[in-house]
């Protein structure tokens, strides 16, 4: 009897341990945009998947990349993370993130449902590494009320933008363009590349050789256009961050800007003085192309090594980035975040929610003309090197030729050192 009691006690003590042992704990690292939404999504996921527990670790967006570098260097336990298009090649090359396609070939079924620029951004060495958290475009945004009041038609090319700006300046608007000017931010380069795509140009050719240092290239011409706008025509005011551009635009002193498309939602937000005055048009230039990018969920190589963690991670990534795209839809409807899932572009709920700040058809049309950026193992490094040079060129402290030549040289150096 005594022995039976002991076995019973042991069993009772062990059961929770066993149940606990079956539970997999995933460390999910994010940047803390709308953390409460993330936590709510996780709560729902945990309800549907009682054997998986997800711990969130969050960092602020400006230091996310650097903190991830520290986490990887320190081998801190990380299973799933937000990843960005410009970081994928370097993280993958450093052996930190794993290709989903290698472990879960069923991920391939999502490829055709994903916008091409987003798909390209999530692919490295031909393998798909993640499913999208959100995807967006860098678009040309303007104050349609100002243009309407002054009788100016929306610009089609960069010459049009210049002419419209000069007209506005003559009419009293001192700096018709508010430009997000901050060399510490990666999107400083991306916004410029988006403008280059608008002209139908590219930064690099198929063999990854620089094109932008050729004075006849669209890239060179656009940089020159920016410099002239700032120095010669004096139609540009600087905003140190998209949030400050948002506020500046809402003072009614500027008409044009180039930013992440979700900023249109921010500028039109209910509490802003000029809410409703802002709209987006196809990127000026002959081809109206623009830059598209994706942020996505990635699995670490740490997690990939352990079957339990790996399977749980896949469940999580599929629930958040794939499936019926419920999570992506929630971000789109509640927060105006763009998405890579093609089916959502025809979703009536999304269209209705977005009607407050943008016409979905416009977004669709621009998305069709969007390309992703050139992503290599050294793009992040080169971007960090090139941005201060760009800042100088735009401000007129260096000639465009000098800056482009230096940029091309550095690119070739990196390609030599790190290219295959």
């Amino acid at each position: 009897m005594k022995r039976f009691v002991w076995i019973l006690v042991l069993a009772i003590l062990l059961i929770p341990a066993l149940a606990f042992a079956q539970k997999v704990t995933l460390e999910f690292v994010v940047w803390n945009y709308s953390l409460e939404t993330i936590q709510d999504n996780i709560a729902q996921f945990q309800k549907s998947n009682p054997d998986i527990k997800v711990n969130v670790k969050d960092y602020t967006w400006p230091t996310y990349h650097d903190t991830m570098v520290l986490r990887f260097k320190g081998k801190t336990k990380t299973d799933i993370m937000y990843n960005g298009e410009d970081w994928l090649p370097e993280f993958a090359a450093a052996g930190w993130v794993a290709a989903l396609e290698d472990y879960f070939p069923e991920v391939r079924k999502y490829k055709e449902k994903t916008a091409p620029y987003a798909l390209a951004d999530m692919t490295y060495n031909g393998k798909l590494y993640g499913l999208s958290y959100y995807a967006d475009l860098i678009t040309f945004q303007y104050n349609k009320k100002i243009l309407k009041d002054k009788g100016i038609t929306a610009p089609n090319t960069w010459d049009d933008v210049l002419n419209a700006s000069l007209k506005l300046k003559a009419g009293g608007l001192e700096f018709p363009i508010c430009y997000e000017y901050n060399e510490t931010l990666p999107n400083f380069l991306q916004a410029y590349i988006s403008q280059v795509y608008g002209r139908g140009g590219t930064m690099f050719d198929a063999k990854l050789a620089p094109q932008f240092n050729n004075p006849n290239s669209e890239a060179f011409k656009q940089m020159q256009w920016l410099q002239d706008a700032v120095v010669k025509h004096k139609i540009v005011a600087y905003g140190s961050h998209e949030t400050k551009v948002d506020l500046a635009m809402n003072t009614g002193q500027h008409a044009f800007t180039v930013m992440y498309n979700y900023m249109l939602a921010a500028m039109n937000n209910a509490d802003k003085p000029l809410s409703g005055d802002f709209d987006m048009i196809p990127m000026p230039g002959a081809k109206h192309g623009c830059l598209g990018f994706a942020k996505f969920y990635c699995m670490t190589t740490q997690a990939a090594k352990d079957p339990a963690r790996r399977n749980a991670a896949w469940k999580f990534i599929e629930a958040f980035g794939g499936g019926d795209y419920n999570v992506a839809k929630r971000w789109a409807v509640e927060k105006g975040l763009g998405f890579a899932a093609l089916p959502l572009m025809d979703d009536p709920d999304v269209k209705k929610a977005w009607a407050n700040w943008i016409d979905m058809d416009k977004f669709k049309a621009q998305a069709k003309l969007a390309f992703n950026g050139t992503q290599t193992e050294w793009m992040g490094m080169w971007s960090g090197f090139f941005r201060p040079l760009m800042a100088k060129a735009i401000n007129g402290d260096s000639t465009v030729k000098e800056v482009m030549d230096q940029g091309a040289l550095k690119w070739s150096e990196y390609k030599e050192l790190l290219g295959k």
Partner: protein
Amino acid sequence: MSSKLELTRYPLQWLFPVLILVIVFTIYPFAYAIYNSFFQILLVLPTTPFIGLKNYMRVVVSPYFWESLVNTLIFAAVTAPVTVIISLGVARLLLTKFVGRGAVRALVLLPWAIPGSVAGILWLWIFHGQFGVLNALLYSLGIIRTYIQFLKDPLLAKICVMIAHVWTQVPFASVLLMAALTTINKELYEAAEVDGAGSFRRLISVTIPSAAGMLIIALIYELIIGITAYDVVYSLTGGGPGGATTLLSYYIWKESFTQLNFGTGSALGVLVALLTLALITTILKVIPNQIMVKE
């Protein structure tokens, strides 16, 4: 003033906690930095070969390094003395009796409590070219007809970041100097007054020499803060326009975390440490001081 102190055993009981912290958090990082500076450590490459002084060479030939170094040295060289001078005045003032002194003392301390990045944004608001406070004030008073773009002109931008930086530093230096000024023997002042010395004379011949030790410490501290400045400046200008306010701290951080080159990043760290050390040593040698720790 100093009498002969007898040689005692290493005072472990006095130093133990601090020593532990130092050994763990200072010795290891220094060793780590110095060691890594001799290797090529590119995160995206699998091997980390020994390359001797190549990292240091890379730094020395980089135009970014020199530009940010010059910016930083000028920044520190201007803000440090300005802060100390203003703070000396503040400290002196707060020791004089006047109505409301208590409130002023408390309020003067507040800029110190604001995190650097927030202070930068506050001053961004003040200097902003589209909705800035200074512009709004000048415009409302009829002094200007169009807003001044303070942060677009390289020289003005440099001055703006210095003003913001000094604003955050004055509270600390003032507290420090206040503490120093209270220990000055009142009789010295009285003697000087009897000799017929006016306020300014008393400042030069009594206050400054007596508080010399603390003044130097404040200066050195402000220099170090100036050399390592980051938060305030970057949230104000982002390093612009065109590199006018780009500082060393950003360049160093970028080398490790954006260029993913930890070898060069470490070399840079070591170089800056040596530079700061050289600066401090020079100051201590040039100015006669009573800090003398080495006996």
